[in-house]
């Protein structure tokens, strides 16, 4: 995917022009011209980013320069110690996690990890976990429970990996077990969809007391491409599928699935990692503060009720 998204082009062009004028003529000499252009830029940004389609958000959520789990760990946490492996078969590089400090408090963190270039993406399997990844995640979350530490998970995956080994080693069972065990974990869990929340591979680390989404993140039952392939036999109709499935953060908030939307910098998290991480820090701090006084039993009850009430149906008398 190109770094420059089609719908952003007019904005990026205007930004480049402003930068060029500034470089050529100096700040003082060009203040008037720049002022006008900057006003135009603001209006254009408002127009474009204020009315993003589901597909445009999907492109932002998948932007190769978007901060990934390890970037967010570095920006948000102290004393991170990465822990590897599921103690059974291997270490899945598509899910990372470990011990860390968040604002002085010990936490366990887990997240899907995508790569930024081809080499990294091959190592990380494009953020698509094998069963070992879910099993590592569960091992770390159970470690958190054992020592009474909160769990923070960052969701960013196209989905589980559709491969031979993943099936042979029981990825369905691994995902299912995580769902059940997370439901009963006697410690606070906060999950944040930071990029792409793709299907079961995403939910496998997403059964939390609080589920948040970054403003441009997406979360869906199947990838837009997969949905389009099934509905119309044509993956290129993904934009339409994304719209139909209501995959955006505002959609999910309306449907009562998530507990908060974390604002992103203008143009998306990739434009300003520090600002994105800062907003996320504020949200995590607030939700942890609310969950901290609760007993383990209350946390499990709270999580049960949160998922128990999801569903829309009729029941005529």
């Amino acid at each position, binding site marked *: 995917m190109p770094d420059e998204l089609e719908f952003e082009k007019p904005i990026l062009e205007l930004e480049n022009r402003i930068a060029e004028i500034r470089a050529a003529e100096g700040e003082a000499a060009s203040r008037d011209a720049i002022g006008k252009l900057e006003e135009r830029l603001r209006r254009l940004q408002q127009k474009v980013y204020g009315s993003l389609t589901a597909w445009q958000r999907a492109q932002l959520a998948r932007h190769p320069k978007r901060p990934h789990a390890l970037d967010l760990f570095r920006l948000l946490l102290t004393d991170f110690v990465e822990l590897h492996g599921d103690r059974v078969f291997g270490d899945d590089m598509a899910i990372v996690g470990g011990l860390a400090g968040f604002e002085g408090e010990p936490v366990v963190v887990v997240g899907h990890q995508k790569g930024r270039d081809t080499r990294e993406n091959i190592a990380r399997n494009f953020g698509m976990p094998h069963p070992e990844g879910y099993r590592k995640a569960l091992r770390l979350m159970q470690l958190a429970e054992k020592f009474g530490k909160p769990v923070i998970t960052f969701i960013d995956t196209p989905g589980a990996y559709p*491969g031979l080994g993943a099936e042979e080693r029981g990825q369905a069972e691994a995902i*299912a077990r995580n769902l059940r065990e997370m439901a009963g974990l006697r410690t606070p869990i906060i999950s944040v969809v930071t990029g792409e929340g793709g299907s079961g591979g995403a939910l496998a680390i997403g059964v939390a007391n609080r589920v948040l989404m970054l403003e441009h993140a997406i979360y869906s*039952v199947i990838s837009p491409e997969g*949905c389009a392939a099934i509905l119309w036999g044509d993956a290129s109709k993904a934009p339409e599928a994304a719209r139909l499935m209501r995959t955006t953060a505002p959609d999910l908030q309306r449907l009562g699935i998530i507990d908060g939307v974390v604002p992103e910098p203008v143009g998306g998290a990739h434009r300003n990692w520090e600002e994105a991480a800062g907003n996320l820090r504020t949200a995590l701090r607030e939700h942890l503060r609310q969950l901290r006084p609760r007993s383990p039993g209350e946390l499990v009850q709270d999580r049960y009720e949160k998922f128990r009430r999801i569903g829309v*149906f009729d029941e005529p008398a």
Partner: protein
Amino acid sequence: MAWFWKKKEGEERPTKVQIAEGLWVKCDSCKEIVYRAEVDRAGRVCPRCRYPFRISARERIASLVDEGSFEERDARLTARDPLEFKDTKKYTDRVKAAKKATGLEEAVLSGTARIGGHPLVLAAFEFGFMGGSMASVVGEKLTRAIELAIQKRIPLVIVSASGGARMQEGILSLMQMAKTAAALHRLAEERLPYISLLTDPTTGGVTASFAMLGDVIMAEPRALIGFAGPRVIAETIRQPLPEGFQRSEFLLQHGQLDLVVERRELRETLRRVLAFFAGPPSQPAP
């Protein structure tokens, strides 16, 4: 074994008309044309290759439980259209068509029953209802079934036959995986047994939630069981899939199932397992 149709010299193959009239059926597995009465007598199993044909939820329940013991619950739950989903057809029209085709309100039937005298909560999928897909109603009915098992302190049996989560309810369908798995956590905490029976096919979000969480997991022979569909896997890895991949026997070999059971043995196997759980505890649970 003279009772099934054999390809002999001079013998006439059944005509299209006869197949359409229902005297003969084509086996989904071996593709042979077989005599319907023989298939029915064997419990809807192919007399040629022993492939268990897909059966409806009602047939499934009738084949497993003590006669007349099934009492349906939550029968009126019916789908809404929370996303106002319309592709080539409206979701509401798809649901309407599925109701008409199956005579059921949704893709799962649930209630109480007895097997060999043992009481249980039983849920069975109807694959004919939008591919047995799970959305809000299926998730709610299963969760209520699990909660009923807890309330009555009796075992739970779920018979799966499903393509997975239903796209037309989007994220709500995905979340039913978490909802049912969370309810199963409660069932496990209460030390109540859950037997999961997987039938052809059990894939996607159903496999990756309640279907793989049984205390005992059994499957019918040759059922397709997996998370990703075989077509998607073949496209991803760009090579043909090994023989028998994602079939019951393959899963058994890879340690994913407790046992594979022929259809005619299912009732007796379930009875034995239920009898085990119903027996007096040798020592009190901790």
